[in-house]
């Protein structure tokens, strides 16, 4: 179980580095798909089976294919060198990212010990999984407690469809 987690984590981190460092946009995108797929594996290990399936279908499937369509539609070149910022700015952003990593590491090492002990939500989730199944466990709160945000999400998707059409449409004049 733990060894699987470390394998998935290593693939996810490698894929994330690939996204930043790949020479072509398509290569970057394929690294992203590998990172997302291994994140789905991590979700399975964390007992979030429905989220893992949605991650594969919606993220690695639909959204990444949308990115791939746009990259191929725009027919971007392979000018990696002009794409990467160099010099002082790269150094500065490296320092900034390092500082962010340091803050997060200190925060998690302080909190980590007490997180591992008080796992009370795990029993509730396991009971819900046993009672309703993987889909029912998440559908139960989604359609009772969170039904208003759920409906608003539908409106948001409609707005996004209309907005994307209006923005990407070629103007006829």
């Amino acid at each position, binding site marked *: 179980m733990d060894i699987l987690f470390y394998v998935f984590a290593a693939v996810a*981190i490698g894929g*994330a580095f690939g996204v930043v460092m790949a020479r072509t946009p398509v290569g970057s995108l394929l690294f992203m798909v590998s*990172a997302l797929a291994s*994140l789905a594996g991590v979700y399975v290990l964390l007992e979030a089976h429905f989220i893992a399936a949605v991650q594969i279908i919606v993220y690695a499937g639909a959204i990444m294919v949308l990115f791939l369509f746009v990259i191929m539609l725009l027919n971007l070149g392979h000018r990696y060198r002009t794409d990467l910022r160099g010099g002082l700015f790269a150094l500065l*952003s490296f320092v900034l990212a390092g500082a962010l990593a340091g803050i997060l590491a200190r925060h998690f090492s302080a909190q980590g010990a007490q997180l591992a002990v008080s796992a009370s*939500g795990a029993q509730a989730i396991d009971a819900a999984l046993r009672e309703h199944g993987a889909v029912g466990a998440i559908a139960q709160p989604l359609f009772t407690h969170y039904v208003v945000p759920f409906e608003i999400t539908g409106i948001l998707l409609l707005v*996004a469809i209309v907005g994307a059409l209006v923005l990407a449409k070629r103007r006829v004049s």
Partner: protein
Amino acid sequence: MITEAMILSAILFVIGTFGVLVRRNAIIMFLCIELQLNAVNLTLVAMSRLWGIDGQVFVFFVMTVAAAEAAVGLAIIISIFRHYETVNVDNFNLLKW
């Protein structure tokens, strides 16, 4: 497992931040923002092991918003590309002081 997942999500978030800062290609910057969203999703799923299934419901909503954001953002990128014939963000300096 929860602590390790949180550390993994922190690493992914930092890599995504670094990517947004150092790449100039607008599509890859956008991909790195998606990576950051995924890191936050991993945090929510890991935290749902502590505080119940609500975290997974939030992940569901985050994914929906990410899909909408990707559709609108890519439409904006297409429209910018039609205007400037490039997606290099250094060329979009109309709003720069």
